């Protein structure tokens, strides 16, 4: 594999040498075929050989119709290889030597982007190349924590690197994505501490606020967002308005969620207490509650059908239905068994039935709320109410 690559590079280098050394006119090759051969190397992922081969096509016939495209592809490949120096040199040649070509517009844009990355004098070339290499190593990786760590080390070693602000945000975003919330927040704080005033500072602050919101630290998130007003343009301030709305909503939902859990816990306690009273002791109560009540046999087929229907549709809906059915099952069972237990001990009295009813209602409401809160299904429902059904 490696030998084959080296072999290809040697062939490509030989082609370049042949083209450069060979006397004019250009060698009697077929540039179209050579270009396609280079493209195949590129597609095969043999980037070193591909770049050399593209450069060879340009060198073989600099005034031919393939030269500008070949140089551009060589520059593209150099960027993919993370060789920013070569990419800059190649794009520069496209701009200087083929100013009228289709590629010159793109070459100018890439040249400007690369020069912004590596500094006007190229003083950040090495750091930028390491940065690129780390980012490329993280492509498609399910756990990019090692890359985040490597980039953190690089930025710590070069705090003045012009792309350090965006690198710090990438570290935060990456850690947040893999669930490392605390370390992500530390990365965002680092970004805020080091960001130069202006756009970079605003973005770092916004990212920190967003991270805090994800972490459920609503007061901190709100504090950060409020501190950013006036640092950006009107649109930035409107983005903050939206972020504060998000904080308020998240806080409200969090409180409601806690209340729902509390209601469920209380419900279980109430049912257990009533069962204890009805049965006259804890063991008898447990035994009574363990017996499936009549209601359950009505509920089960409904649950099975609803569960099956939900499984064929939206994932979020399916999950919510599953939780609601599970909650319904437990509620039906406990309340039903509790009532049966009481019935066996004598006539049902109104306060007892009312208590069971209250527990069942609270439990159904709580389970329903927690289920639609999960994965923000509630947003989808809210959107459907606001904008109507998507149709079909």
């Amino acid at each position, binding site marked *: 594999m490696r030998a084959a690559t080296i072999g290809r590079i040697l062939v490509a280098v030989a082609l370049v040498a042949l083209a450069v050394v060979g006397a004019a006119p250009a060698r009697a090759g077929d540039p179209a075929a050579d270009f396609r051969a280079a493209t195949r190397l590129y597609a095969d992922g043999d980037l070193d050989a591909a770049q050399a081969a593209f450069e060879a096509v340009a060198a073989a016939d600099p005034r031919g119709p393939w030269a500008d495209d070949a140089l551009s592809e060589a520059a593209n490949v150099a960027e993919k290889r993370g060789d920013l120096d070569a990419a800059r040199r190649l794009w520069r040649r496209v701009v200087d030597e083929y100013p009228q070509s*289709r590629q010159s517009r793109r070459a100018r844009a890439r040249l400007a982007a690369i020069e912004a990355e590596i500094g006007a004098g190229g003083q950040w070339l090495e750091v930028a190349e390491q940065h690129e290499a780390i980012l490329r190593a993280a492509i498609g990786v399910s756990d990019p924590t090692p890359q985040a760590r490597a980039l953190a080390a690089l930025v710590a070693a070069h705090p003045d690197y012009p792309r350090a602000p965006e690198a710090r945000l990438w570290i935060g*975003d990456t850690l947040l994505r893999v669930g490392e919330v605390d370390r992500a927040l530390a990365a965002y704080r680092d970004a805020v501490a080091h960001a130069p005033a202006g756009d970079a500072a605003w973005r770092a602050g916004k990212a920190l606020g967003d991270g805090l919101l994800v972490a459920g630290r609503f007061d901190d998130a709100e504090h950060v967002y409020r501190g950013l007003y006036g640092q950006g343009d009107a649109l930035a301030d409107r983005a903050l308005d939206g972020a504060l709305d998000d904080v308020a909503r998240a806080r409200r939902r969090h409180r409601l969620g806690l209340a729902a859990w509390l209601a469920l816990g209380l419900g279980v306690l109430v049912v257990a207490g009533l069962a204890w009273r009805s049965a006259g002791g804890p063991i008898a109560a447990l035994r009574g509650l363990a017996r499936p009540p009549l209601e359950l046999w009505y509920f089960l087929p409904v649950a099975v059908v609803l569960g099956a229907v939900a499984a064929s549709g939206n994932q*979020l809906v399916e999950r919510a239905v599953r939780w609601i059915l599970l909650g319904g099952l437990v509620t039906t069972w406990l309340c039903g068994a509790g009532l049966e237990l009481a019935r066996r001990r004598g006539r049902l009295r109104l306060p007892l039935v009312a208590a069971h009813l209250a527990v069942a209602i609270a439990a159904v409401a709580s389970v329903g709320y927690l289920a639609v809160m999960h994965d923000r299904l509630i947003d989808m429902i809210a959107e459907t109410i606001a904008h109507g059904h998507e149709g079909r």
Partner: protein
Amino acid sequence: MRSTIPVAFLLSSCAALGALPACGSDAGDDTGDDAPLVTDGGRFTIDGCGFDVVTRLGAEAPAPGADVLGAAPDPFQLHLGFGGAPATSMAMVWRTDLDTTATTVRFGVGTALDQEATGVTYRYISGLGGAGDTIRIHEAHLCGLTPDTTYSYQVGGVGADGTERFSATHTFRTAPDRVASPDAEVVVAFVGDSRGGYDVWGNLTQAIAARSPDLIIFTGDAVTIGQSQEEWDDFFTQGEDLLASVPMVAAHGNHEVNAIEYYAQLAMPGDEEDYAFDFGPLHQTVLNDSPASSGDLAGKAKSFLDADLAAAADAPWKIVSQHRSLWSSGTRHGSDTTLRQEWGVVYDQYLVDVVVSGHDHIFERTKPIRGETIGATPADGTIYVVSGGAGADLYGTEPQAFTEYAESTHSYTIMSLRPGMLSSQSFRDDGSPLDEFQITKPQ
């Protein structure tokens, strides 16, 4: 040899437009401000272009630009599109105050601005139920342009007293002609679902500009409420730096709700819903999967798709863009199995290379898929890309068997196409590389 096709000066003189009431001798006096606005739509045939500018119900009929400059005639929200073949035509759309009807483009090859064309202008009433502001649109189409050529241009107009108000000078490049330049490469940016996230969208457009694409395909849901002019203002204002030099066409998203704001502000080919065009080696098809009449999915749109792909059999690359995803591991919407049944079979039949959609606010690339069979190499089927991360609040992903890579992130995708090779790179909004793939074909 480059042939110099004379540029058709559309609407160069009122004499050619005698039949049009707005082009009478008193056209200059009629700012339209006092006259009741009739918004029944209409059409205007563009000389030398071979197609009409059509406005829909909600907008007035297009009328040729006159010589009136209002109180605020400076062009804003300038963006490019096209109504004809992008190798030989380009459209400019911009806004001014209501009274300005002067609609002129100065343009030329390279840095020259030695040619001039007059466009059309029309108003529409924005907002839910037409309760919003009246908006003035200027739309000009240049036709007969030379393929694969960079032009400079500025838009604006000249008042009756000779006062000129023009925009800054921008450039654009026409698409290469597939026959004349069979090996030319084109670079296309795919991005969609910016709704509500216009700060992110602004950053993304800057990042896209650094990749210098030749064309932008927007996969729908630019705004949350199609009739909200404020949102459209944010969308076009944030994107103006990019959109004034790279043409953008869009697939209609469900949030656009077929609003007049969508059709009036974008210049796109055909009926602006289901259309197709060649862009160098790419045959690009765009479909509306939230049509006003849902029967169109299996009817009008499917018939169009079938005929279009049958006629484009020889195209080196075939890409379809639409809003909803036939295959998506997004937890919010997921795969649209109805569209799979209606359109997926057509994609399979004509071996569409890539389908790019949005709707789920995620990035995803599937494995190649044909029918319900998940393949291993691009020859085994169509690759489906969900590029729904242009700024809207993100949704979750749960990778499925068909998923090659999926991530809940803001992103854009850049595809570079030449015969034999399609190379795709996707980037997050922070510029970091997200995903890449290549497809090669024997030539």
